[in-house]
């Protein structure tokens, strides 16, 4: 026990570890809150698609020497709007549209990086570089994720109504399109900021895993939301700390911790079911 305590105090004395943990916790909180609605609305892969668009935008920004975040955030927000609109009109189905946009943006990004022969570290965009986050980036991430979390709580009841039954919400006069836009916006911000953490290839895991894990046990929206935030935060912390101890990439550790949590919840869920049947 003493050893673990010592290790944690040791970790907390390293500024880059503290930054990584703060950003990790905030981003995963945003991602797991939004993830519940996204997974239920069958938008699971939107995180993957948008992060590839984010990668393309970052590559473009670096090629033209502009601050990456200022290009990536608006571009990804616009793409999120468009993807949601495509789903509403229904000619191209959502999953197909996401796959299309995702692959094209990734290809464009790779092309831009190679043509501009900039020294962009492709690896760090694809797999994240949480230990290399600067002080400024940290403040920006903190502001953005706090905004996402506060807005989510303000819109919580409306999000539920729109996610559960969009037609009913619309029919009784709720501005469903507006709430979808809010959601697209929050998702886009979360993804762009979160790309730093696990990279564009793995960001969707932060959105998908905690809600799916929680739904194995909990059966009301509120409980799923609460459990999802806790699972998300705990997994990120465990992932970052173990990656430091084992000296392996943080993104891989976070995703595998999430997988472990999912397996544990799934087992508990099916055990609960069996016990209910017996009773």
């Amino acid at each position: 026990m003493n050893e673990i305590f010592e290790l944690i105090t040791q970790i907390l004395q390293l500024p880059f570890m503290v930054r990584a943990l703060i950003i990790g916790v905030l981003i995963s909180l945003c991602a797991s809150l939004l993830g519940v609605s996204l997974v239920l609305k069958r938008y699971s892969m939107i995180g993957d698609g948008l992060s590839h668009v984010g990668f393309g935008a970052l590559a473009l920004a670096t090629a033209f020497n502009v601050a990456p975040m200022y290009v990536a955030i608006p571009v990804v927000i616009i793409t999120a709007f468009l993807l949601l609109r495509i789903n509403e009109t229904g000619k191209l189905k959502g999953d197909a549209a996401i796959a299309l946009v995702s692959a094209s943006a990734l290809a464009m990004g790779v092309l831009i990086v190679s043509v501009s022969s900039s020294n962009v570290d492709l690896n760090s965009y694809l797999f994240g570089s949480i230990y290399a986050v600067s002080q400024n980036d940290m403040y920006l991430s903190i502001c953005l994720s706090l905004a996402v979390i506060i807005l989510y709580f303000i819109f919580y009841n409306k999000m539920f109504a729109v996610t559960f039954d969009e037609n009913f919400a619309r029919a009784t006069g709720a501005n469903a399109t507006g709430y979808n836009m809010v959601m697209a916006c929050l998702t886009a911000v979360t993804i762009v900021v979160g790309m730093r953490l696990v990279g564009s290839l793995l960001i969707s895991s932060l959105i998908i895993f905690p809600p799916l894990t929680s739904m194995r046990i909990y059966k009301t929206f509120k409980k799923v939301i609460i459990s999802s935030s806790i699972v998300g935060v705990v997994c990120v912390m465990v992932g970052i700390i173990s990656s430091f101890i084992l000296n392996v990439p943080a993104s891989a550790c976070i995703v595998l911790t999430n997988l472990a949590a999912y397996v544990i919840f799934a087992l508990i869920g099916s055990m609960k079911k069996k016990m209910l049947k017996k009773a």
Partner: protein
Amino acid sequence: MLIECNNICLAYENNIVVKDLSFSVNKGDYLCIIGENGSGKTTLMKALLGLKKVEKGNISLGEGLKQNEIGYLPQQTGIQKDFPASVWEVVLSGRINRLGLKPFFTSKDKKIAEEKMALLSIENLKNKCYRELSGGQQQRVLLARALCATQKLLLLDEPVAGLDLLVTEEMYHIIYDLNKQKGITVIMITHDVDRAVRDATHILHMHKDKVFFGDKAHYLECDTCRQFTENEAESGHGCCKKGGCHCHE
């Protein structure tokens, strides 16, 4: 006049599904919309709810009915089948039209949600998970949610689809009572012509280009109208032209 439709046309892309339809609904009416699949029933309902643009003509709401005071019982979507939500959360979400800019429900909203649950005798299901209920219970929950949104007008899209006989009977009974005892105007889409004729006060029968609208007595008198679907060749002529009943060719 609660709702009045004047020569409305509804279309999907370039396909016209409803052409020059006129009808009106008064307070306390029980209108059944019947017709084959693809005759535009659901499209019409979406137009009444303001979810679908009317290509031509207009729908006007009267007697101080606002667009957000219509209760709606939609057909179930695939998303709802595995949605983690308690009955309470679903019923309360019917009050979303009263939220406005407020982020949270007030105690008045909660009280009304509780009343509606009591009305449909589902109080005991309050903390149950919606997706684990039986089909009939789910419909009651959705009906309670619709009642949370309205005091005046209920629009029901095939409320008994997929329910067994006993539960179907129960559901019709609840709807009938809401109409007769609570004075809530009902517009219902159904495939069950016999039942429509038994409970409804008015019938709207949609069949391709031909439409019947009138009160129940006229619908029963009008043989040609009744056999709309069976004798297409004959139904082109001699449709009843009595007062209150209009057949369009």
